[in-house]
C-alpha cells in the first residue's frame, strides 16, 4: 500500500510556481530522498503533504487521508522535523516531548514511558531535564527527531535533517534514521541537498527542480543513467590500445594525465590497467550523486534560464526567479 500518493500537486505563489504538477507514489516503509537545489520546491512539497500549505490544485493521500479534506487526520499520522529548529528553548527536553504528546492526543498512560524510550533512542536521557537553550545544535536536532517520532507516526518528514550539523552529529542522525526504518518500518521522506546523505539513506531518490520531479529512481540506477566512471592514469600510456577496448568511452589528456571514461569500473579496471602500458599512478572516481544531480538539475538551470536571458537585467530577473 502506498504511504503517499500525490496527484498533480501544484502550488503557485503570485510570481512563482513552487510545485508544478507533482504526481508520485511512495510505498510504505520506503526512505524517499527528495533532492534538489535551494528553492526547487522541496519544502513547499513537504509542507503541502503535511497540510501546512494549501495546494493551488491537485491533491494527495497521506497515510490514506486526503490532505485537502482531512488535514487533522493527516497530521495525526505524520511526524515532521522542520528545516529550522523548532524545539522550545525555554522548556526542557522532557517538557518539549510532553507538550508534543499531549498535542497529538496520545493516551496519558503511554506518554511517560514513550518519553523515556525516545530520550534513550536519541541519547538525551542524561540531559532530559536541562533547558533546551543549553543544548548544542546536534542535541537539538536529535530532540526534534525524537519529537517527530514520539507519537509513532506512520510517515516521517525530515526537511534537511542534518543541515548545519557537524559530521559526527550528521552520522549519528543517519544511523537513527536507519534504525527507525529497521525497527518500525516507518516511511521516511527526506529532503536534502547533501548527495552523500541521499545516497546512503534513500531507497529511491526524486530529483526536483523548479517544482517538477525530473528524475526518480534508486541511487544506483540514477548513477547508471549518468553513465561512466572516470579513471585517471599517469605513465607511459598506449592511447590507441586503450581506445580499442570495448568498455572505454573516451580518452582525454588533462593536466599531464589521461582521463578515461569507462563503464563499470568495478568489473573492468583490471583489464584497463593490463592494457594500458606502464602506469605510475591510478585514480578512480566513481559516479556520485553529485554528478547525477549536476547532470539532471544543474544543466537544466543553466540551459533554460541563464542562457536564454540576454541582457544584464533579464539575467538578474531570471536569477531572482531561480533563487525563489
Amino acid at each position, binding site marked *: 500500500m502506498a504511504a503517499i500518493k500525490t496527484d498533480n500537486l501544484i502550488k503557485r505563489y503570485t510570481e512563482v510556481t513552487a510545485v508544478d504538477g507533482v504526481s508520485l507514489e511512495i510505498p510504505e516503509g520506503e526512505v524517499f530522498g527528495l533532492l534538489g537545489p535551494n528553492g526547487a520546491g522541496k519544502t513547499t512539497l513537504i509542507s503541502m503533504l503535511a497540510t501546512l500549505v494549501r495546494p493551488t490544485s491537485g491533491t494527495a493521500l497521506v497515510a490514506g487521508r*486526503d490532505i485537502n479534506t482531512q488535514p487533522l487526520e493527516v497530521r495525526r499520522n505524520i511526524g515532521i522535523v522542520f528545516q529550522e529548529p*523548532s524545539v522550545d528553548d525555554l*522548556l526542557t527536553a522532557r517538557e518539549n516531548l510532553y507538550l508534543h504528546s499531549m*498535542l497529538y*492526543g496520545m493516551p496519558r498512560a503511554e506518554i511517560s514511558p514513550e518519553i523515556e524510550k525516545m530520550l534513550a533512542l536519541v541519547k538525551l536521557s542524561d540531559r532530559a531535564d536541562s533547558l533546551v537553550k543549553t543544548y548544542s545544535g546536534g542535541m537539538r536536532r536529535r530532540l526534534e527527531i525524537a519529537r517527530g517520532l514520539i507519537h509513532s507516526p506512520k510517515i516521517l518528514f525530515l526537511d534537511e535533517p542534518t543541515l548545519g550539523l557537524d559530521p559526527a552529529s550528521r552520522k549519528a542522525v543517519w544511523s537513527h534514521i536507519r534504525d527507525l526504518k529497521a525497527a518500525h518500518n516507518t516511511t521516511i521522506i527526506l529532503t536534502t541537498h547533501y548527495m552523500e546523505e541521499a545516497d546512503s539513506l534513500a531507497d529511491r531518490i526524486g530529483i526536483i527542480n523548479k517544482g517538477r520531479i525530473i528524475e*526518480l529512481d534508486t541511487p544506483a540506477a540514477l548513477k547508471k543513467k549518468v553513465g561512466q566512471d572516470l579513471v585517471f592514469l599517469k605513465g607511459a600510456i598506449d592511447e590507441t590500445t586503450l581506445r580499442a577496448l570495448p568498455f572505454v568511452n573516451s580518452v582525454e589528456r588533462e593536466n599531464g594525465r589521461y582521463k578515461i571514461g569507462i563503464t563499470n569500473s568495478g568489473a573492468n579496471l583490471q583489464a584497463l590497467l593490463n592494457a594500458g602500458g606502464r602506469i605510475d599512478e591510478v585514480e578512480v572516481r566513481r559516479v556520485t550523486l553529485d554528478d547525477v544531480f549536476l547532470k539532471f538539475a544543474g544543466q537544466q538551470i543553466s540551459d533554460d534560464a541563464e542562457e536564454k536571458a540576454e541582457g544584464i537585467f533579464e539575467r538578474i530577473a531570471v536569477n531572482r526567479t531561480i533563487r525563489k
Partner: protein
Amino acid sequence: MEGRQGTSPACPLRMGGPAHNFPGAGGNHERVSSPGYAGEVLWRPEPVKPMLNLNAVYALLLREAKIFFREKERIISILISPLLFLFVMGKGMGTGTSPVPGYTYQQFIFPGIMAMVILFTSITYGLYIIWDKRLDFLKEVLAAPISRATLFVGKSLGGMLGAIIETLLLVLIGALFIIPLNPLKVLLCLAAAFPVSYMITNLGLTIGAKMKSMEGFGLVMSFLTWPLFFFSGALFDLGAAAPYIRAISLFDPITYAVDLFRIIMLGSGYFSVWTDLGAIAVFCLASTAAGVAAFGKLQQEK
C-alpha cells in the same frame, strides 16, 4: 489505515500528465470536486467536531505557566512602572487632589494602576507570540492536529494566568501599603481581573498574530498601550475631564476596567457597575472574534 479499497498499481511517477483518478480512499471523506480532481480543489476546513481539545489546551497552558515562573525577573520588572506611578506620582501629587472624597490621590489611582498592570502584562504576553513565530515554536503547534480555536484558547488562558498573578501581587502590595481591602474586595478584584485580562490578551494576540517582526512591538506600546492607559481615566476623574477626552475614553476598554476596580475598591465609579460589566463583555466577545479570525489566518512562515 482502515477501509482502503483498490490496491494502487506500482506507478512510481508521472510528471505533468493528465489528471488521473485516485483510488477511492475508503469513502470516509467527501470529494470536493468530481471524479478526476481535475479542476481547482477548494480547501475545505476540517469538520468542526472537536473544536476544543481540552488536553491540548491544558498542555499549552502548562507551557505558558512554566515559562512564566521560570522568568522571575519578568514578573518583577512588569510591576516596576506601575509601582512608580503608584508610589512616586501617587504620593507626589499630595492628598488634596483626590476626586473621591475620603480617599487620597494615591488611593484614587490604585484601581487604575491595577488596570494598568493587567493591560501591560496581557498585551505584552499577547505580542510575545511574535517571538514564538520567530523561534519557530509556533511551527510545531501549527503543525499539530489541533484546531486553531484550541491554540487560541490555550494562548489566551496563558495570558490570563500571568495577569492574574501580577494582579494578586499588586493587590497584596495595595492592601499592605495603600488601601484597606477586606478579603471580599480582594476576591472581587481577582474575579474582575479575569475578563479584563482576557480581552486585553486577545487584543495582544490578535495584533501579534498579524505582526511580522518584533520591531512593531515598540510601536504598539507607544501608539496603543500608553494611549489606552492614559485615556482610561486611570489617573484622573473622567467626570472632570475635557469633553473630547471623555468622548475618546468611551471607546477605551480600559476605561471600564478602571471604573469597575474603582467601584469594587472605593465604592463609587463614573459609570454603573452594569455599564462596566456590559462594556467589558462586549469587548471580550469582539476580541475573541478578532483573535480567532487572526489565528485562523496564521500561516506557516517559510
